[in-house]
């Protein structure tokens, strides 16, 4: 495992280093698909310049990073490229480590015999961690995000570390990293439920409302999480001696005042919104992100890792300022569900649409902004299609997962009452 991993790391570092030194390094940080007002490198530099001028970075509306990020980059500003490459390496390695501890141990032998072909063999599973790391490190989206020095890479690293700590079973570290991820952008709050479910499962505490051990652990974890979050917020307050950052960071994420185009659904919707309904639709769209947590947790309470994947995917699609870096994070998980391939219904369509949209984004942007021969509707249409493809991908994997679970409990080759081959439908 070490040799292929080293080779992979070398290839990934080489690609990024080559791009950093080429002329594309000035072009990529300007692309709206890769950076957003929340995590653009240009804005981090601007915030540091404002701090040097003696003006608070949150006095204007350009800087929307958290104070810990300012202070982190204050010290490592000269090594920014290296920092970002290290972060990506970190994520890759972390994915590697966690997927070692795969769910093979949980796949008990209680399944019917004909499902043996559904259960993954150790040989298949040996290569999954490497494939996950490869999917993340060599994904063009990740490479673009790293070369653009978008702080999305840092956020991904924190989430990856959180998943690693959860899988390893250390609840304190998991709570701390989750608090850090929530502190950076609010949406990872929804990952609280899957983390809790996984840790409960690992400690063999059944999810039962009456059991006191369940409540004990839940309260413990909640306190650790909220405590670390409070510590971080208070530390930020003391760093800059003001609460400005709350409205500049969290108020900005939640109220979406900046309508810079990106690959998400929010910008054009709120550019064309009637003033009267603006607040209503902001609330609807933001609730939409958090709203799937409870139903998904109930349905997938025995499969917390898949739940984490679903939550991350939903966050990446429906958040207020998505970028391709967020997409790369959940796409890295896909090799872990290789065994679902036979149940996927739309994978060809979805992958073709995603590829086509990724190619069309820069073309239609150029036509709108530079050539002037298209208008904003073209770019918006591709945004819509891209998001529909992502939603189809996620729901397809969900369908495949549920179907596999059904087959594992009821057998693979199902027969109807009269003995002919049955078809499964959702009813």
């Amino acid at each position: 495992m070490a040799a292929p991993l080293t080779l992979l790391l070398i290839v990934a570092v080489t690609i990024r280093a080559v791009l950093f030194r080429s002329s594309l390094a000035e072009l990529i940080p300007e692309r709206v698909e890769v950076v957003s007002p929340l995590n653009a490198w240009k804005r981090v530099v601007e915030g540091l310049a404002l701090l040097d001028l003696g003006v608070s970075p949150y006095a204007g509306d350009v800087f929307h990073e958290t104070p810990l990020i300012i202070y982190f980059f204050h010290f490592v500003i000269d090594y920014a490229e290296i920092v970002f490459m290290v972060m990506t390496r970190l994520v890759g390695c972390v994915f590697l480590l966690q997927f070692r501890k795969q769910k093979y141990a949980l796949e008990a032998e209680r399944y019917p015999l004909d499902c043996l072909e559904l259960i993954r063999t150790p040989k298949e599973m040996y290569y999954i961690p490497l494939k996950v790391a490869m999917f993340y490190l060599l994904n063009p989206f990740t490479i673009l995000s790293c070369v653009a020095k978008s702080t999305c890479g840092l956020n991904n690293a924190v989430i990856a570390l959180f998943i690693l700590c959860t899988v390893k079973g250390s609840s304190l570290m998991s709570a701390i990293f989750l608090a850090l991820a929530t502190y950076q952008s609010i949406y990872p709050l929804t990952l609280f439920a899957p983390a809790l479910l996984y840790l409960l499962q690992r400690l063999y505490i059944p999810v039962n409302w009456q059991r006191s051990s369940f409540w004990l652990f839940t309260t413990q974890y909640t306190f650790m999480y909220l405590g670390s979050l409070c510590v971080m917020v208070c530390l930020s307050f003391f760093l800059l001696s003001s609460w400005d950052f709350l409205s500049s960071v969290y108020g900005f994420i939640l109220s979406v005042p900046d309508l810079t185009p990106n690959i998400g659904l929010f910008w054009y919707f709120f550019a064309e919104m009637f003033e009267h309904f603006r607040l209503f639709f902001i609330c609807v769209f933001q609730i939409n992100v958090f709203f799937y947590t409870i139903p998904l947790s109930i349905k997938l309470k025995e499969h917390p890792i898949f739940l984490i994947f679903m939550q991350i995917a939903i966050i990446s699609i429906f958040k207020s300022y998505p970028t391709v870096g967020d997409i790369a994070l959940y796409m890295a998980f896909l090799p872990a569900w290789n065994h679902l391939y036979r149940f996927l219904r739309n994978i060809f369509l979805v992958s073709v649409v995603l590829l086509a949209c990724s190619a069309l984004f820069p073309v239609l942007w150029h036509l709108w902004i530079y050539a002037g021969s298209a208008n904003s509707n073209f770019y918006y249409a591709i945004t819509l299609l891209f998001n529909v493809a992502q939603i189809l991908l996620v729901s397809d994997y969900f369908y495949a997962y549920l179907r596999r679970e059904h087959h594992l409990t009821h057998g693979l080759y199902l027969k109807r009452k009269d003995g002919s081959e049955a078809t499964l439908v959702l009813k």
Partner: protein
Amino acid sequence: RPYLVFPKIRLLQWEATEVKEADHVPDTMQTPDVPPPTPAKDQFQEELVIRPLHSGDIYASFQFRTMWDTDFLRGSKVSHYRLFPKSLGQVISKFSVRELHISFTQGYWRTMQWGQPFLPSPPGAELWVWFQDTVTDVDGAWKELTNVLSGIFCASLNFIDSTNTVQPSASFKPLGLGNVTDQRFLRYAVLPREIVCTENLTPWKKLLPCGSKAGLAVLMKSEKLFHSSFHSQALHFRPVCQDWKCKSTVWELRQTLNVVFDLHTSGQGKREWSLFKMFSRTLTEACPLASSSKVYVDVTDNPQLFELSPTTPLLSQAVVLGDRRTYSVYDLTNQATFGQTRSLNMLLRWRAAENMLRPLLHGERYVAGYGLQTGEIHTLMYNNHPYRAFPVLLLDTVPWYLRLYIHTLTVTSKGRDNKPSYIHYQPSKDRLRPHLLEMLVQLPPNSVTEVTMQFERALLKWTEYTPDPNHGFYVGSSVISALVPSVVAMDTNSTRECPLFSSFFPCKEESSYFMRVYTEPLLVNLPTPDFSMPYNVICLTCTVVAVGYGSLYNLLTRTFQVEEPSPGLAKRLANIIRRLRGVPLL
């Protein structure tokens, strides 16, 4: 024993230093050295300065000054208005205004062709006000004041709000007396999009004591005034000293009108100008309420440049804008000026065009870059003094939808970096306030200093665009304020006869003067959404969200079941009947 004689210090710039008379001076003429008789509480003076420019155009500048010794700040209302306009007086006492400067300008002043104006103004409408330090809510007073002024001048000053108002910290110090320099009481706003027309001129003329019925104001006819290259009307109100002893202060109201007539469009090609050709009127009498009514024609370049008729015996010299100029003076209070025809029509006949002296300070501004995503603002400042460097204060107000990046600010002179010694930067807040950048830059002699800054264009909400969004958005002019060394003081001729004790230091009289230069306004395009699409966009985006919701809902609430094929129609009917009968189904 020899004793030293100190020359008398002149405080007023426009006072003539010498008056040369060719003929016998009538007794009714007053020499300026004699102080006027017991001053009335208010007095009114009017004057017109005509300056032929080297490019062949004519620059005419009207100034109407009312000085009034009253107390606006006292609680008891001032009720007896004579020469001072009542509408303005009431506004000033209600809002406790200490200084008010408002200008409406159509056209851009071309410094390189026309030289320096007497009173510079940016294109559009500019308003800056210093409030008294007794005002508690300056923002509220500012909002009401702009609305009241909008009514008085029939201009859309109500568009002035917090998104285009700034509080400069160094650039707009009070022009009158007073020692309050807390910038909390200063407000500055500019509307570059404002158009000036007859509707603005008429209420402005109504503020004059004689209106447009007598005196110099009869020349202000709109059809000729607006058929010009540059037109600017302004109003300046400030406290000044009553006399050179400065024991008491009076309030001064100056109304100025600057207009530049174009030789080619109005002169029909003939290089000949007259008052009648410029204004389609001639002067018949002075305003009876005016204590002084004069017309000055700049004859410094006479007779090389042009020939003036009728000639006048009076000449006056003054140092203005750092240059010593000679003026022919026509005194309208003297009936003899009007001659037999009872009307005064001056005629200027051109001879030759000459190169004019380059103005010492000049500014230019433009937007660089392509596309609708980013851009760069370049401001160029030219210092044409051969050997003297001087500092200038640059004020930039940029609207919030052009997001400036201060870390991309570069200031270069002669190819090298020139770090400003003072930077005051207030970043913008979306939809609340604009960017404010003030810098003190030292301009090296005979050089061009370039200030560049990158910006990003924002996508606005569809309701925030003007009805013609593809026209673009205006960015107000930059203001360059400087103390410029005077041209007169540039004289380094050391062969002239003068005593040694006065010629050691190069400082001479009026060695530097205050100058303000306005750059061009900018017109910037922003990316626009499709304005016909709000309903469609809402429907389509909600559809995509519903697709997500629907597929997840489906998978969450339904389970997999083996599908039993549904029986044929006959069997189903039979089943229904059997169910009714209570018999087992097929």
